[in-house]
């Protein structure tokens, strides 16, 4: 048996799965210390199901904590950005093009030094130990303990980044460092941005991982725990500690995968309606369709691989204006339960429209809502129009697809949607993310330096595909489900013609839990 937990900004959800079956599901509130919420969820789940802790093989966590930290500009550490690349790039220093508020959160500490590599492997400029020492002294003077290092062409030649990291570690023991070559591919600005965001999350990531671990131990769970990443595979605790940015889009990924699991559908549109937005994603062959374009996280360009999500400003707490002709994007968010009309507040929200129409019974202390019939009719039509347009935009072809509604705001859809072939509201839809985390996949990676002049490219890719496949299976993936998810080639020009670093990732469903599950 395994447990999936989704730690969101408002709710912490947990599910207990026995193989494919949902044994128990619970929705609790996220607590400020995270650990308390996770403990509560585990407590409820295990009490409800009366399952002994030693029967739990693993706990899989999905969390939007790190994405939210970037989007909401909180919990971010100040970071010194060191770019190695002068005399090139002087006009576009680190954090160019960033929204001012997030650049401010990181402290705006941008340094540029000589060095880096050219496309052909020759040095762009020599590293200047004196220049670096000046930067290090300034970082020490400012009391900064976190650094992101980037260098021109570092995915092809990591040495300059590593040399500067070494000099920093020697001078500033205990310093946290993210090097850009560890986290991104060619594209200096996006790779540098990814390294900066990652570095700014390192301290927070340490706290989050520790609090997860504490909650599990406190509830008597001694099994391994994993955290899901962008591509729907799992990482172990140590890896997350170093690369929290890799969790950025795990929320939508888990939601889509959970919706597929709950409905058995491989090809569908999934609409996750929350308090503020509706996130529309597409399932293809049971997996989230990936975005092809450069993705912004909190307004910062990165080049992570992420699911293609269209977020529209429509949620349960969205403000209704203009006699129902206009809804959102402003929302009362999690204050819906105090500010919405149905909860005794004074703000007309999307949820109130449904209550007034008699299509939603909130139960408990909720109050009746009385609105002009025209406002209700307009409002419901606006909700339908917004969702139909969003779904139309995401449809892969002109054929309509089934639409799966998940998330707490799914109650906003009372009837049919023209853009949907049919609408599904699976049981446990409210905890789709936690289910997605519980069924996260196992990855197997392989990275090798190959020479296409000695081994034809196709042969090399075939050979490494087999190896990645084997690694995934060894890590616990079901062989029948393993597929190649990513192929990345980086030319290493300074070596013999045809030298390439080839990285492949294979992923598959979990067949069994064992050590070394994360790639």
């Amino acid at each position, binding site marked *: 048996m395994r447990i999936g937990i989704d730690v969101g900004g408002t709710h912490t959800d947990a599910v207990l799965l026995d193989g494919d079956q949902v044994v128990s599901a619970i929705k609790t509130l996220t607590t400020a210390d995270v650990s308390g919420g996770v403990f509560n969820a585990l407590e409820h789940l295990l009490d409800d199901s009366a399952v002994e802790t030693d029967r739990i093989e693993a706990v899989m966590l999905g969390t939007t904590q790190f994405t939210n930290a970037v989007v909401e500009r909180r919990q971010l550490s100040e970071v010194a950005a060191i770019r190695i*690349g002068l*005399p*090139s*790039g*002087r*006009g*576009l220093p680190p954090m*160019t*093009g960033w929204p001012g508020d997030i650049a401010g959160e990181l402290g705006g500490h941008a340094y540029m030094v000589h060095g880096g590599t*050219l*496309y*052909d492997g020759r040095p*762009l*400029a020599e590293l200047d130990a004196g220049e670096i020492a000046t930067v290090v002294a300034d970082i020490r003077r400012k009391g900064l303990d976190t650094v992101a290092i980037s260098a*021109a*062409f570092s995915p092809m030649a990591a040495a300059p980044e590593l040399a500067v990291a070494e000099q920093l570690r020697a001078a500033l023991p205990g310093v946290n460092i993210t090097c850009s070559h560890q986290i991104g591919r*060619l*594209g*200096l*600005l996006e790779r540098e941005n990814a390294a900066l965001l990652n570095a700014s999350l390192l301290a927070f990531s340490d706290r989050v991982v520790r609090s997860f671990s504490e909650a599990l131990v406190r509830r008597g769970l001694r099994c391994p725990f994993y955290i899901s990443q962008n591509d729907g595979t799992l990482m172990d605790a140590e890896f997350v500690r170093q690369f929290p940015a890799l969790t950025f889009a795990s929320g939508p990924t888990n939601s889509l995968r959970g919706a597929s699991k709950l409905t058995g559908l491989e090809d569908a549109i999934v609409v996750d309606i929350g308090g503020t937005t509706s996130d529309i994603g597409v399932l293809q062959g049971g997996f989230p*369709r*990936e*975005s*092809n*374009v*450069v993705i912004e996280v909190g307004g910062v*360009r990165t080049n992570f691989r992420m699911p*293609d999500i269209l977020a529209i400003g429509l949620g349960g707490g969205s403000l209704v204006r203009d006699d129902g002709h206009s809804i959102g994007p402003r929302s009362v968010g999690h204050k819906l339960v105090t500010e919405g009309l149905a909860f005794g507040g004074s703000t007309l929200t999307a949820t109130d429209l449904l209550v007034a129409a008699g299509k939603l019974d909130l139960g408990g202390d909720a109050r009746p809502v009385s609105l002009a019939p025209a406002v209700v009719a307009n409002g419901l039509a606006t909700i339908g129009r917004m969702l139909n347009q969003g779904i139309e*935009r*995401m*449809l*892969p*072809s*002109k054929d309509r697809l089934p639409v799966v509604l998940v998330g707490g705001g799914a109650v906003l859809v009372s009837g049919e949607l023209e853009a949907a072939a049919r609408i599904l509201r699976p049981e446990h839809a409210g905890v789709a993310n936690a289910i997605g985390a519980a069924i996260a996949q196992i990855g197997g990676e392989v990275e090798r330096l190959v020479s296409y002049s000695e081994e034809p*490219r196709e042969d090399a890719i075939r050979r490494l595909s087999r190896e990645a496949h084997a690694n995934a299976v060894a890590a616990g993936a079901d062989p029948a489900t393993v597929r190649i*998810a*990513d*192929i*990345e*080639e980086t*030319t290493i*020009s300074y070596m013999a013609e045809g030298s390439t670093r080839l990285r492949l990732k294979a992923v598959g469903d979990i067949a069994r839990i064992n050590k070394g599950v994360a790639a």
Partner: protein
Amino acid sequence: MIKLGSESLADLSAGAVFLATGGGGDPYVAQLVAEQALDTYGPVDLMAPEELDDEAYVVAIGGVGAPTVSLELLPSIDEAIATLDAFEQRVGRRIDALVSFEIGGGNSLIPIVAAAARGIPVIDGDGMGRALPEAQMMTYPISGVLPTPAVATDYEGKVTTFDTTDILAFERDIRQCALSSGGMITSAEHPMSGRQLKAAIVPNTVSFSIALGRVLRANRGNARQIFEPLAALFRDSIYGGLHHLFTGKVVDSSTRIIGGYDIGQAHIQAFDDESRVLNISIKNEYLTAELNGQLLASVPDLITIVDYETSTPINAERLRFGQRVTVFGIGCPAFYRSARALEFVAPGCFGFDFDYRPIEELVATRTPAA
């Protein structure tokens, strides 16, 4: 003459990537630099070619090299200004206006950066109407404009001057210079009079590119949804019709920097039929599109690959395994279909062993199997 401010840059850059047919360098960094320039120096005058004085002295400016390099060796305002300074010093006179090599990609923005810094106009038009990998393929030399005097600066600010009047020798020299200077240089070349420019330029491509960017922005949607508005824009332009060539998933893509170019192939497989594979050959730009051996389009006609879901154009260096894409073909400006121009841009000039056939003809004779 209209004023070009930083608010137009996003549209110009989006249109320019579409016209870049896979090459032209990363537009984002060029756009950042152009924004800085227009914010610092104010808007630039965009001058229609016919408004230019016959005796005016114009030079073409832009980047030369492998587009992949522009992802790492970032351009700067200083490099554009230094190139212009070096050019003026070389020829001993002031320049009246700037023009771009190619509207496709980042090179559409470099003249704007330099013109903003100098307070001189930029001409609405370019020397390709698209992007192409080599100097002799520009309309300027094909129309008789000499490539030199020319200068190039590299990332260190090192200046190289060129004097040969032979366009093929010039291309060899400047390519060699780019190769040994980090893979990307900024060059000022093909100086010409207003009179020469009017005869040689592909006109109004800057304003067309802005209009194209606006259509892409206003009709955000997938490639199927955007087809009609795009086709309508191209129908009434110097380009021919827009044709949908293929939609599918990138199953393989590989380019390498060879001899100062990004060289490679991409394979795109139909969503519903694994046996249908479109092969795209790449030399900085997308050169040919062949479906299971049948040619669907080739240079000098334009081949553009867009993200199927968002219709965002994807450059060759950003093509990746698993991407879902649509491939469009567009007729090239009429200039390139003349016998004189085809001497420099026909498929044979890129090493292919077949003659150029216009895209309308290829599409009309496309067999059902393709």
